[in-house]
């Protein structure tokens, strides 16, 4: 009898031990982003920020190891992104998906994500409509109207009367043009012309000669990032700045690009949701850890904070529900969640699952021999205007 009781006790103990072992599982997070080709910097910035997050918060939550599995979509390639999402869900059995630099790639996985009820955090893909496409999407980046509207309002308030817009000739450029023109006109300003510049343009001087001829107070630009954006700012500095025409923009003056633009960028005014110099303890530790782990020239940018905040959402969901939360649990938990990000306070909108955040008005200045963006005004907790105008 005694032996039997002992055995039973042992068995119970063993089962308890097994149960604890079973609950300490590996949680796989699949990140689909661009790690090769001309846009490889996105993937690199995501990965570095994720590594910093895991260094700061540990690689496990309540004993559950968080393992990030990276997949390279190589650029705007919806078919490839879809195939990678299938592979991560079916074969790797990930619990969460993250990443997505380009809108078409995010759109292409919407159906699979919905079918698999896979909680998915969009790190970039900033076309307004993206989160509508699956009830299991949340977004931690920004939308183009969100930041564009604020620079247009600022221009209208600050005695700019006549402006020309010049945007790159592709969908995000049209978004920027539409919202800038609409907001600036509503503020009483006049748009002299809206120029669309072909994506492959390398020499911007003829477009700018056209601008110079009309003598506006300012030029609003929207560039695709990388070399063309650098050209847009440099040509402004050599042709329009001497004539007193100001330059307004959104993402064009990120600090990661500023050394490539050089002193030409001084005086450019932009509105954006993340400024690298923002005075915020989380931002300071993010930057400090990035430089100690990846070299002194590493600079956080919009992709770093997005990946960092995406990990925060995932860690919180695992802390709350354990290693195997359902899609509905995670998304329900994330709706309305507010927390501090390196960029400032952010909130996942309860209804739209999109991000609500501060938008900063900044000016490029020189500090300690380096070009940086300096915030001079904060517009708190801006929602995506597109969704408010298109409820549905």
């Amino acid at each position, binding site marked *: 009898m005694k032996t039997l009781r002992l055995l039973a006790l042992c068995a119970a103990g063993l089962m308890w031990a097994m149960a604890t072992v079973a609950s300490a599982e590996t949680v796989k997070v699949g990140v689909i982003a661009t790690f090769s080709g001309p846009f490889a910097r996105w993937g690199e910035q995501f990965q570095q920020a994720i590594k910093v997050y895991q260094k700061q918060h540990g690689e496990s939550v309540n004993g559950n190891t968080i393992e990030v599995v990276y997949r390279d979509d190589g650029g705007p390639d919806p078919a490839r992104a879809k195939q990678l999402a299938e592979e991560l869900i079916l074969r790797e059995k990930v619990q969460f998906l993250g990443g997505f630099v380009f809108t078409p790639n995010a759109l292409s996985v919407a159906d699979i994500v919905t079918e698999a009820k896979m909680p998915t955090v969009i790190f970039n893909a900033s076309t307004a409509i993206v989160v509508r496409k699956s009830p299991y999407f949340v977004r931690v980046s920004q939308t183009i109207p969100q930041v564009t509207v604020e620079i247009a309002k600022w221009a209208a308030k600050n005695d700019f009367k006549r402006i020309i817009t010049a945007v790159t000739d592709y969908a995000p450029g049209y978004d920027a043009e539409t919202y800038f023109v609409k907001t600036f006109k509503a503020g009483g300003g006049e748009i002299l012309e809206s120029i669309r510049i072909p994506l492959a343009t390398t*020499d911007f001087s003829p477009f700018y000669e056209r601008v110079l001829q009309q003598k506006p107070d300012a030029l609003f630009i929207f560039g695709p990032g990388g070399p063309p954006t650098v050209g847009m700012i440099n040509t402004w500095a*050599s042709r329009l700045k*001497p004539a007193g025409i100001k330059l307004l923009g959104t993402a064009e003056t990120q600090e990661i690009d500023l050394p490539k633009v050089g002193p030409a960028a001084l005086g450019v005014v932009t509105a954006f949701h993340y400024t690298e110099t923002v005075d915020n303890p989380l931002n300071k530790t993010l930057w400090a850890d990035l430089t100690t782990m990846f070299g002194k020239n590493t600079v956080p940018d919009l992709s770093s904070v997005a990946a960092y905040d995406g990990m925060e959402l995932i860690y919180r969901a695992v802390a709350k529900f354990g290693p195997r939360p359902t899609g509905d649990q995670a998304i329900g938990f994330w709706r309305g969640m507010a927390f501090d990000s390196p960029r400032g306070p952010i909130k996942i909108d309860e209804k739209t699952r999109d991000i609500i955040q501060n938008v900063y008005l900044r000016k490029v200045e020189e500090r300690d021999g380096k070009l940086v963006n300096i915030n001079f005004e904060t517009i708190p907790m801006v929602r995506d205007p597109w969704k408010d105008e298109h409820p549905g």
Partner: protein
Amino acid sequence: MLDVTILLDGLAYGMVLFIISVGLTVTMGLMRIVNLAHGAFAMIGGYFATMLLGAGLPFFAAALLAAVAVGIVGAAVELTIYRPLYRKGELAQALMTFGLTFVVIAALTTVFGTGIKPLPIPPALNGVIDIGFRTYPTYRLFLVAVGLVLALLLWLLIDRTSFGARLRAAVDNPRMARAVGIDVNLLFTVTFAGGCALAAFGSVIGAALLPLEPYYALRYLVLFLVIVGVGGIGNFKGSFVAAILLGIIDTGGKFLLPQASAYLFYGAVIILLLLCPHGLLPAKSAA
């Protein structure tokens, strides 16, 4: 007066295209090789120059040294990789040189990263000059001047020296040139190296118009090939005319019809090639 500005802008742009692609027209005309790696050589020169500038060399020294270095690399590559390709078909040549381009892109990405690499123009060129009716960026006038000087030097070299005479003979009829005792192999190597050096030089001084990044070699390859095709393969004067004409058409189109400018350039190319399928000034052998 505005037309003059646009004309100058177009000229400056055309000159950069000319300097980079003139080497390509000679190698394609002379060696009859489909050289899709030409942009890669230009790009190597640009990246090398950024290293030299970083080491404190002045801009012009860096540009010249980069040209010389790429010329030497070009000669080495010609002797080892291109020579066995001459007798292979065009498909083998296209595949090999395209592959070479990818190797260069991957290598430069590994060393320099994926972003754009700034190649600052010297302060002396960074200002503006009063050209009578308005101020104009000094840098662009400098590009026009350099392009004109180089075109003149090339014309003297090709039309007025015995080296040029041998080169023209080899382009027109390589077998006959060999028969009269011209060392065509040596001509190939020297010309190839020279073309690469010019491409490198052009990519350095034109970096403000065609910014340096690892995909430079592919992004602008079409432009270079268009200049060669429209100008007439093997004819450097044709390249000069084509580069300036297309530079001005492209620039003028962006100014006058910004919305249509993406199509205007290629529209002009299609019309020019329909009118002169062998290029504006075809080499005798290609006609």
